[in-house]
């Protein structure tokens, strides 16, 4: 009985992974395409990579995208966590109001948020560029973080925090050492989602940026007018970078284990 269910879950996960990675593999393959086409193969070539690396706007865009995504993720995760915890202690009316307001950036079509922010920044006379893009990203990331953390907070056992206080912990210690570790899966998934939303954002970024600050999505979108597999080359490079990070994350614990064994 157990063996059977283990097999079916393995098959399920395998199929799921194939589903997830099919387009990724397709992208990688087509980044080596000899012709301009994004859909018809005509031989192996590295021309798109050459083009990509010699194109400074692409490398700049990668830099901007990564830095803004990391910054936005860090800031929104910290602020989101603090606020979610604080909010759980507030009255129901306030909490519901904030949650509804938080829903707005998620449910609104991005063009609406984008136009709203565009007009808002213009009204304030803010010069558009890196800062406005960062602010906008933080703005729409925090709701995602809070959305991930709040369910975890609700299923927390309140007695644990109280017990900590009884045993002499300060509120800060209770927060850091009891509450946060318990909601950690929510924080992590919130951070992951925030990173994704920021990394991939196009519409909002497009309208609030300026000064030549482009992110990868903007480049991809405006360059796909005339069929450009450099985009696939760009994506493949990102895939490689991410895979490298994943490998590092997995190798470090192994190295640590070996060291402690010695």
């Amino acid at each position, binding site marked *: 009985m157990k063996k059977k269910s283990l097999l079916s879950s393995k098959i399920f996960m395998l199929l799921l992974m194939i589903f997830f990675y099919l387009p990724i593999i397709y992208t990688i393959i087509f980044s080596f395409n000899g012709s301009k086409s994004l859909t018809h193969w005509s031989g192996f070539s590295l021309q798109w990579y050459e083009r990509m690396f010699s194109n400074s706007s692409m490398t700049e865009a990668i830099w901007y995208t990564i830095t803004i995504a990391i910054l936005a993720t860090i800031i929104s995760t910290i602020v989101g966590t603090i606020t979610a915890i*604080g909010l759980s202690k507030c009255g129901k009316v306030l909490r519901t109001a*904030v949650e509804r307001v938080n829903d707005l950036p998620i*449910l609104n079509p991005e063009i609406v948020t984008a136009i709203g922010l565009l007009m*808002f920044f213009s009204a304030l006379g803010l010069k558009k560029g890196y800062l406005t893009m960062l602010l906008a990203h933080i703005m729409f990331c925090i709701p995602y973080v809070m959305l991930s953390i709040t369910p975890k907070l609700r299923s927390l056992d309140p007695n644990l925090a109280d017990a900590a206080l009884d045993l002499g912990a300060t509120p800060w210690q209770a927060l850091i050492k009891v509450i946060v570790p318990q909601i950690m899966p929510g924080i992590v998934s919130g951070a992951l*989602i925030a990173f994704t939303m920021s990394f991939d954002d196009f519409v909002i970024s497009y309208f609030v940026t300026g000064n030549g600050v482009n992110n990868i999505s903007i480049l991809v979108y405006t360059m796909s007018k005339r069929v450009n597999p450099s985009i696939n080359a760009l994506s493949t490079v990102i895939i490689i970078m991410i895979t490298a990070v994943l490998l590092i994350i997995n190798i470090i614990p192994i190295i640590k284990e070996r060291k402690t064994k010695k």
Partner: protein
Amino acid sequence: MKQFKTMAYPYIAWIAVMIVAPMLLIFMYAFTVKGNSVTTFRFTLENFINFFSDAVFLDVLKRSLIIAIVTTIICIIIGYPAAYIIANAPGRKNVMLILLITMPTWINMLVRTYAWVGILQDDGIINSLLQMIGLGKIKLLHTSFAVILGMVYNFVPFMILQIHSSLAKMDKSLLEAASDLGANRVQAFLRVTLPLSLPGVISGITLVFLPAVSSFFIPKLLGGGQYVLIGNVIENQFLTAGNWNFGSAISLIMAVIILISMYITKKVDKGEDAKGGFAK
């Protein structure tokens, strides 16, 4: 513990500025109409009346809602088992799986969607394979199937993440207690695991349904230009028609509908009102 509530105040100030203020601008656009050339506003419900009196728009809205609901349901059907399997996987494998699931979402959505176009089109991979086996071509691209496939592909990782974070670190002793009390595995699942994971499912639904209703790029590319969803209409009004007033009005209508449906969904999760958990 009560002093924690002041931690929320800075953010509340932030959203008043960053979310509410821009939304007020949109609100203002929705209830006004542009004058002839200079922006002289007059308050009116014209935009809303225009929308509701046109059967085509209502039809588009209905279709968008249906697609979003179907997408959400499929995401739950795929996402829950996946989250369950991952949550029960040992330590490092758990982390690896989560990262594997999330990684595709970091590749630009445009790029991934174009890849699906290539895979699904009439002479794409799938049809080529079918032809090799001797079966005929199927029209896969520019169908509802393609749109839902694309949307599910885009959103299911979020559903998995949300459900997973609910299932992870679930108190295993509760399950042990259940089996001690005579429950079999199915009963234990239905009466212990499922209810405890419900908050995760609800937030997963929020994360999928909301953006799904307003998405425009995936329907455009995978459904073809003739696949018009409410997101496409809004985008068109803002960018091509230049009619921000009408576009804003449609978004408000959509927002209200979504908020109402979320409210109904949350009623299902009775845990909102019940005392218990950290949030009192």
